[in-house]
């Protein structure tokens, strides 16, 4: 649906987007995830046509579009501040784009009514922008864009201005709307939870580049590098050194010991540094030494944080300066089993929970 080819954008000397290539498929909920200044919004604005590309190409629905003015592109956008026209009421806002299409007045009115129903604001047609709440403005902005039946709907941090409760509700509504309409959605967000909850696929951006494009599960389980791993949820990082003898490769990891390294393409050489990542929920805790030959390490409980029904434990292990964080569910009636701070504790982990990150 959208094909972005080697797109670069610079503002004077600042390179906002550097050589980005992406394929966004028909009917997909696609997110651009990154911190502020990562180039995600600039990329979205180039798709919409508000920022011209410095170089590269954008193909939308089979049409080469990088030089097409925004009003001719088959995409519509929901703006971060919603951009509800203040001098028009809700009906006229929603009907704004219909005028160019040569649709008869009665038909227009019917379409607007349909939209007002869709966004569950049927009696709000005569209100003005300043009489709407943030969530209502967001719905009007959605309706105004969707009434034109765009090939692609672009959403620029649409939930950023809403409070937490409303945001969760709107996330669900957005997702179900997208599935109902089957339109390609491209969402820009800095909220990793939002991106992972809503999207079919996510592109993680940093410093103007796309670092990794994957499904939410793929990003979470096999982050490509430290940045993605750290951005998408909590992560323990361990420094290690590669020991290679012929085809067989091993990894010495600080605090965890020696383990086999799966390196089919031979990216690592003997003596290379490598970083291993493990999620806090990847560890299993044992109050006494478990009977496992591989993947056991002894530590000492330093501190604990309560996160609702779960606990985040900070555990010091030998051979590593930073503590390891471990997430565990608090089972009901397991109070007696709670360890005192400073008491010894054993950690085990399944081998496939460990991710070896790409060389940097």
């Amino acid at each position, binding site marked *: 649906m959208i094909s972005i080819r080697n797109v670069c954008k610079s503002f004077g000397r600042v390179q906002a987007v550097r050589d980005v290539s992406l394929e966004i498929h028909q009917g997909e909920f696609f997110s651009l995830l990154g911190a502020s200044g990562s180039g995600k919004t600039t990329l979205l604005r180039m798709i919409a*046509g508000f920022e011209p590309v410095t170089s590269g190409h954008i193909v939308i629905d089979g049409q080469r579009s990088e030089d097409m*003015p925004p*009003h*001719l592109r088959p995409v519509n956008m929901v703006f*971060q501040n919603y*951009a509800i*026209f203040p*001098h028009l009421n809700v009906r006229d806002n929603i009907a704004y784009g219909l005028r*160019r*299409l040569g649709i008869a007045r009665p038909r227009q009115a019917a379409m607007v009514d349909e939209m007002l129903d869709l966004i569950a604001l049927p009696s709000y047609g005569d209100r003005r922008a300043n009489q709407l709440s943030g969530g209502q403005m967001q719905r009007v902005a959605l309706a105004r864009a969707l009434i034109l039946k765009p090939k692609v709907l672009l959403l620029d941090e649409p939930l950023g201005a809403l409070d937490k409760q409303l945001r969760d509700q709107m996330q669900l509504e957005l997702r179900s709307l997208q599935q109902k309409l089957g339109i390609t959605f491209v969402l820009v967000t800095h909220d990793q939870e939002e991106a992972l909850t809503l999207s079919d696929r996510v592109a993680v951006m940093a410093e103007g580049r796309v670092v990794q494009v994957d499904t939410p599960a793929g990003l979470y389980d096999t982050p490509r590098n430290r940045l993605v791993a750290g951005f998408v949820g909590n992560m323990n990082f361990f420094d290690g050194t590669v020991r290679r003898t012929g085809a067989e490769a091993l990894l010495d990891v600080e605090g965890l010991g020696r383990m086999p390294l799966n390196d089919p393409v031979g990216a690592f050489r003997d003596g290379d540094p490598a970083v291993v990542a493990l999620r806090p929920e990847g560890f299993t805790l044992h109050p006494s030494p478990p009977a496992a030959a591989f993947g056991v390490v002894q530590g000492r409980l330093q501190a604990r944080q309560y996160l609702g029904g779960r606990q985040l434990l900070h555990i010091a292990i030998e051979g590593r300066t930073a503590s390891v964080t471990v997430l565990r569910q608090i089972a009901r009636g397991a109070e007696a089993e709670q360890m005192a701070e400073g008491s010894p504790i054993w950690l085990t982990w399944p081998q496939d929970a460990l991710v070896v990150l790409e060389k940097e």
Partner: protein
Amino acid sequence: MAVGGAFGRMNRGLAIYAVAFVAVLYLPILLIPLFSFNAGVYVKFPLEGVTLRWYADLAGRETLHHAFFNSLQVGLVVAIMSTVLAVPAAKAIARYRLPGKRAIVGFIMLPLVVPGLIFGVALLTLLNRFGATMSLATVGIGHVVLCLPFAIATLLPRFEGIDRSMEEASADLGENAWWTFWRITVPTILPGILASLLLTFTISFDEFILAFFLSGTEATLPMYIWSQLRFPQDFPSLLALATLILVFSFVMVFASLRIAGFGRTARREGAI
């Protein structure tokens, strides 16, 4: 912050100064209406009684009426032309990343500081070279240039106040630049346009120096006043005329500055 007694005294001193400042600023101008109702021919104290004679006297002056309509005509054309030129220029200055913007703004604001005399004689010389006869049209040319900086300065804060995403949303919804301008930009900057029209009209209506050089045989209202200053017996009637013009100008400019939100945006106008 603790406010000491000295600070309070200073405040009061400043306030008195401010009131005196405003009084001195307005005093000369307020004398004009005062003496326009004076029965005596000579402008001196004490006043000799109240009369509306001088106002009635204005009604019968053909040349005055002619000059008035000349000024009206020039003022309307100048207001429209300078505002029409100023709208796209203000938009570009407020909204586009332009290399050399400072130089462009400086150049446009030039008529504010070039002495009117120099501008007047220079334009006169040029028009003479082209063999143009001085007329209301040449006055209009001078006034448009003089009014442009004011029109742009009035419109700039309005354009800066437009949320960029409003126009982008319009383009995104399928409207081209022309219709976006009419459906989104114009309704938003309408107060600025109105303020610019009022202000430029008043500037042109009151302008004397350029008109002095460029008007030829057709007199504008200030030219008429200038020509009548020689006749002492006409002085009270001129005061009556001046009173009418002052009241008119005050109302127009006050309305314009209020509409434009002058003062609330003074921080940004500091660039001049």
